[in-house]
């Protein structure tokens, strides 16, 4: 059983990698846009330092490091948010979705593996670039176990939302609201570009429900070399619970959506 799933997973990863590599200009432009955005943050960080805002004293790291960590961790997880939905959409556009489903594998497994392969490729590129860019700027991130656990749990949580989103895109076809809401709001409330503490109190309360605002403090604490405290444990517990709930709900929504399209006959519509 496990060997069979691994064989399937390999089939999807190989297919995604070969397809990704066949679009050379896309690969190059992806690299270029990430480097440009990193340089932008470098200059924004310099402006913040020049303004003498006391950001570093307040937060314990430069703005450039703060924003780069936020964008990298959020980017890694965001690829999980969009990968499943994009995988379904791509298969529908290519006309291969029905052929995949008729292969006799569970649709949930197929969507999961299709999205996972996209995530692995997407995250591999993001992580590779992040390491490259951070080393260019002489920024080193001390990777701690708790930081890795936070990123893994955060990715799982977001992937669960991505699975639900993949189910909903089968029904709505365009304008799927879940990933849009999560993507837009976690950028605003998750502490990606600025600390959550500068938000009004009522928005800080809203930010608390976003896994982003629990994952990033743990990673940044690792960067600062801060000792693990009760806050870290609380963040990790929140991420663990949210990952479990999110993945379960994601598979449930995906299963219901598959059943819905079997009834309505809209499996191949997009």
């Amino acid at each position, binding site marked *: 059983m496990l060997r069979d799933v691994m064989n399937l997973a390999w*089939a999807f990863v190989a297919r995604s990698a*070969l397809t990704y590599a066949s679009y050379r200009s896309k690969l190059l432009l992806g690299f270029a846009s990430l480097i440009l955005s990193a340089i932008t943050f470098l200059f924004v960080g310099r402006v913040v330092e020049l303004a003498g805002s006391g950001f570093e004293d307040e937060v314990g790291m430069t703005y450039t490091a703060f924003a780069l960590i936020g964008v990298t961790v959020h980017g890694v997880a965001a690829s999980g948010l969009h990968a499943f939905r994009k995988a379904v959409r791509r298969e529908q556009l290519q006309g291969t979705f029905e*052929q995949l489903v*008729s*292969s*006799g*594998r*569970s649709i949930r497994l197929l969507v999961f593996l299709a999205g996972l392969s996209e995530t692995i490729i997407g995250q591999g590129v993001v992580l590779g670039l992040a390491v490259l860019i951070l080393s260019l700027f002489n920024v080193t991130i001390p990777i701690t176990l708790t930081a890795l656990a936070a990123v893994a749990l955060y990715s799982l949580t977001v992937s669960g939302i991505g699975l639900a989103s993949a189910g909903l895109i089968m029904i709505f076809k365009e304008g799927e609201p879940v990933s849009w809401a999560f993507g837009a709001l976690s950028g605003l409330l998750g502490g990606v570009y600025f600390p959550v503490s500068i938000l009004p109190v009522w928005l800080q309360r809203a930010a608390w429900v976003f896994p982003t605002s629990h994952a990033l403090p743990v990673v940044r604490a690792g960067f600062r070399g801060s000792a693990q405290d009760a806050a870290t444990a609380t963040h990790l517990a929140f991420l663990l619970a949210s990952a479990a709930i999110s993945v379960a709900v994601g598979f449930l929504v995906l299963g219901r959506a598959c059943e819905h399209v*079997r009834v309505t*006959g809209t499996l191949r519509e997009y």
Partner: protein
Amino acid sequence: MRAMGLTTKIVEFSDVGKHFRRRGRRLDALRDLSFTVASGEAVALIGPNGAGKSTALRIAAGLLKPSLGRAVVCGFNVSHGTPRARRRIGVSLGAERSFYVRLTTRMNLAFFGRLAGLRGRGLSSAIDHVAEELRLEPWLNVRAGRLSRGTGSRLAVARAFLGEPQLLLLDEPFASLDVLGCALVCSAIDRRLRDGCALVMATHRMGESRFCEQVVELQPPVSDPVPSPGVSLQSRSVRPQTGCE
């Protein structure tokens, strides 16, 4: 000659119907279809466009849930959406836009072969075998998007053969094929029928059904609540012939 010995019912359709709801209106896609196919047998679903042939194949493939009736495929009721039944089926629902156009013919076959449970040497030999059978070798390293329509049709049939399925569901398998392509596909199908594989094939050309024991004629259902006398559904037995004209 078909495989001798005990035959197993592979497909059982009993009064199967499918309708869709579009803006509150009921649209009938298929009405009261009944037929059975045993191992080694071939059935052709014949009818004009809109008669429900592809709908029937999609129901058998588990891609659609029937609205009425009972459809059992490889011992599983398709209403329950059992993937296990689908793993015993080789499906070709048309060649156009069903491949990864950026990948080569071999890569496409390898991907779908893995989905069918093949791996390692078994996968390679299965690909080589179907490629030889359907004369796809010259195109194995060509991107699927660059294949001619006829070669794409043969590739779609080759993909359905991977994994030695118990049942083949082929939608217009001879579409876009020249005389040689048609003969190759016919011979390949016939070999599988002799090995005990069952076939349900949709076509709108009577001549393409000549190697099928049963021909089920479908007429487009009328989407009104009163059963129309114009709706006819017949099943007849014909003497099977092998090969294409």
